[in-house]
């Protein structure tokens, strides 16, 4: 498997505050990776650097060996923590927009998923509940045939039944050689679909391991280990 994402000595400072300190990460294709850490640990900063929304203070991030830029954005499908979509737009117009914008967008897949979740494509985004909006955004992101999916808190506002469907959607829709990086607090809910986890704390990587290794070595779930490591 080839390396999709590589971060080398990645550091980000906001004034005196160091959000990320010499982070090294290497992600290969075909994995679902959980980026886990308490609030303010640097998860979103890292994700924003990977997506070219922030520039690192030092160090570098590369996708397929190339620096972050137009080429990397073509192969990364990103779900941000805040919506950037125009709330006055109807879903079908947003889909047209995505189809225009991304050459790897699968329109049929998007409509299929909307139908499964009983979301009306003629509805405007602003008339939808928080959870439904989140579902729409995730559908848009998962409808691309990307190499790397970066999902920042994808299931936070969604009810448990829809959560199961969404996890299933993620499992059945990403391409075999693609990798998914998911940041979340809801570890117990997504633990079974992850194969690797990265614990991040105060801008440092505390642990990088596979889910099965954690369970074998500690005899406990990733969720339980997280609660232990980050006990307040």
């Amino acid at each position, binding site marked *: 498997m080839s390396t999709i994402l590589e971060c080398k000595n990645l550091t980000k400072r906001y004034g005196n505050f160091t959000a990320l300190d010499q982070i090294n990460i290497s992600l290969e294709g075909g994995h679902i990776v959980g980026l886990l850490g308490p609030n303010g640990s640097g998860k979103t900063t890292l994700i924003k650097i990977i997506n070219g929304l922030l520039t690192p203070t030092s160090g570098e991030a590369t996708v397929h060996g190339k620096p972050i830029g137009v080429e990397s954005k073509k192969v990364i499908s990103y779900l941000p923590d805040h919506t950037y979509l125009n709330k006055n737009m109807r879903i079908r117009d947003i889909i047209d927009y995505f189809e225009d914008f991304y050459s790897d967008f699968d329109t049929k897949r998007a409509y299929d998923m909307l139908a499964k979740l009983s979301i009306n494509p003629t509805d405007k985004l602003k008339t939808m509940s928080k959870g439904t909006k989140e579902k729409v955004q995730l559908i848009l992101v998962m409808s691309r045939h990307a190499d790397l999916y970066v999902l920042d808190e994808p299931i936070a506002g969604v009810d448990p039944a829809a959560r199961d469907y969404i996890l299933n959607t993620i499992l059945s829709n990403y391409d075999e050689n693609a990798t998914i990086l998911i940041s979340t607090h809801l570890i117990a809910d997504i633990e079974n*679909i992850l*194969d690797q986890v990265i614990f991040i704390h105060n801008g440092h990587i505390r642990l990088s391991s596979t889910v*099965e290794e954690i*369970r*074998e070595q500690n005899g406990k779930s990733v969720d339980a280990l997280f609660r232990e490591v980050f006990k307040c």
Partner: protein
Amino acid sequence: MPWNLDSDRPIFIQIVERIQLDIISGIYHPGEKLPSVRELAGIAAVNPNTMQKALSELERSGLVYSHRTSGRFITEDTEMIENLKASLAEEKISEFFESMTKLGFQKTEILTMIEKIIKGEQE
């Protein structure tokens, strides 16, 4: 419906156990084709790599075999399935005896109790 998995044991072992049980109890028949790794991962709501690992493990034990291009199948060796069934039954029984012994019962007492319960069911 995602499979009910314990949170404190490796996931692939639990998948192996679950599929073994499905074979023993006849949900999967000898010689039947298994769904693809992807499909099974979707049904169980687990990572496809973990499902792959579990299926490789089942293959190693001989309970499942793969045809290079057409997928994975349940063994046609019914004797192997019967043996697995017998060894699982033994396991369950010794677990039962262990917990009854912890409660302070002797083996003969346990047997008498079992007989009594079976009679009660028949009446």
